[in-house]
């Protein structure tokens, strides 16, 4: 009988492990759908108040004040704008993971309201839930976007297009290249999330032009 005990223990242990494995397998068969906000429009914000500036002229363009905040009433976005540069690998710097509720303006791009394409970047989500640009892809042509500047003036933009690009096919010229009018590009992630790398495979870009 004494020789049977280790064998019995091994056998019992095997059964326990099989049970644990089966339980785990069965419990992880469910899928989690995308976490999308339920009531679109209910969280809409009022449009910000203040003097709305006219679009810039090409003759002797005056320098414009730096951007300080961004409001997108339809999707409930109201955030200060931090300043972003380039990461060490030359790609866009992004807001820190400790502050995913803010968006940032790329200082290497024109200021919002000056001639050219101003770049604003924000996270779509954190590890656990939505972040500042969670609902960016809901925007449609004609929706309003406001940027408040350091001198208190407001720049009003209207969305002209919403596009999604694979990051490995990113159209650099279209997004960052020169434009003759005052434009905005709002950039966040989208498309398929690659759990192996922890990154989204695509970027969503919202194009907007200053409203006269």
């Amino acid at each position, binding site marked *: 009988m004494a020789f049977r005990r280790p064998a019995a223990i091994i056998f019992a242990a095997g059964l326990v492990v099989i049970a*644990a494995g089966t339980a785990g397998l069965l419990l992880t068969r469910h899928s989690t759908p995308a976490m999308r906000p339920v009531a679109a429009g209910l969280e809409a914000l009022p449009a910000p108040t203040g003097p709305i500036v006219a679009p810039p002229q090409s003759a002797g363009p005056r320098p414009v004040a730096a951007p300080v905040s961004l409001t997108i009433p339809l999707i409930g976005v109201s955030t200060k704008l931090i300043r972003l540069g380039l990461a060490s690998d030359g790609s866009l710097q992004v807001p820190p993971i400790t502050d995913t509720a803010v968006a940032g303006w790329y200082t290497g791009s024109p200021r919002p309201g000056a001639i050219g394409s101003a770049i604003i970047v924000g996270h779509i989500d954190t590890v656990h839930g939505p972040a500042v640009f969670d609902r960016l892809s809901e925007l449609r042509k004609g929706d309003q976007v406001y940027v408040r500047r350091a001198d208190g003036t407001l720049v009003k933009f209207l969305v002209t297009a919403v596009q999604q690009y694979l990051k490995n096919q990113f159209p650099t010229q279209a997004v960052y290249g020169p434009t003759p009018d005052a434009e905005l590009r709002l950039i966040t992630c989208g498309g398929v999330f690659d759990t192996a790398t922890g990154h989204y495979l695509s970027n969503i870009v919202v194009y907007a032009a200053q409203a006269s």
Partner: protein
Amino acid sequence: MRFPRITRTIRRITMLLAAAALLLGVPAAAAAHASSATPGTGWIRLAHLSPNTPAVDVYLYSFGNSDAQIVLHHVAYGTVSPYEAVTAGDYSVAMRAAGASASSQPVLSTSVTIGADHAYTVAGMGPEKGLRLQVMDDDLTTPPGKALVRVIQASLKQQTVKVTCGGKTIVPKASFASVSSYLTVPAGTWTMAAIGSSGTATQSVTLAAGTVHTLVVLDGSNGLEMISLEDAAGAGKPPLGGAATGFGGTAPHGPGSPLPWAALIGAGSLLALTGGLRLRRRGLRRQLPAEV
């Protein structure tokens, strides 16, 4: 081949899936290369650059339309309008004497095809006796870290001018009513000078990286003048690629990988098998001691 029919079916299904993936992949790839502005929008601006021509009214018609889409009234010499965003397509530009009826015969007209994401300048150029409408294709790309500059020479008094940027000649000989090609200059704040035989105009111009400029040389009331237009601007230092702006918290998650659990079940089975076999062996030995 033990189950030929099943194997054939599997092969057929695989080919169907491959074909479907290809058909879906092509439009998906095309969509990924969509243009920047609203699909099908370009820009146009209108200018009066003929020194001895009086002010004009400028009309822009989209092809086939008798009602003007844009009308600029009383455009005098030296005026360059701001860019207007218009749907890409065919247009015509007409100039009439300032205040003339919109239905009167235009003094000048020309057609222009506006391509999506392209910009154009349509200017009345030349002396009044030889007035013409010139359509210019405006460049909207810049080499990284640099600026683009071109010169429109619209001075009749200085038949030819030399244009310098920070003392360095960029256009050695610009004749009246000419448009130079675009020149790449280093980013910076430069003194631009237009030097004619009997007059000079200078201006300090900031040429930021990623910008496109047009310098227009004009006969001013006080001699030679130069206006500097910033045609377009983009990121002076374009970032590489897109932005890493997501951590997956709102992404859909499929069922977890079954592999670790399968491995666990496998390990448990091995353990149980080992233990069970040993139990059986010991049990057999005890049952058949004579065989040992």
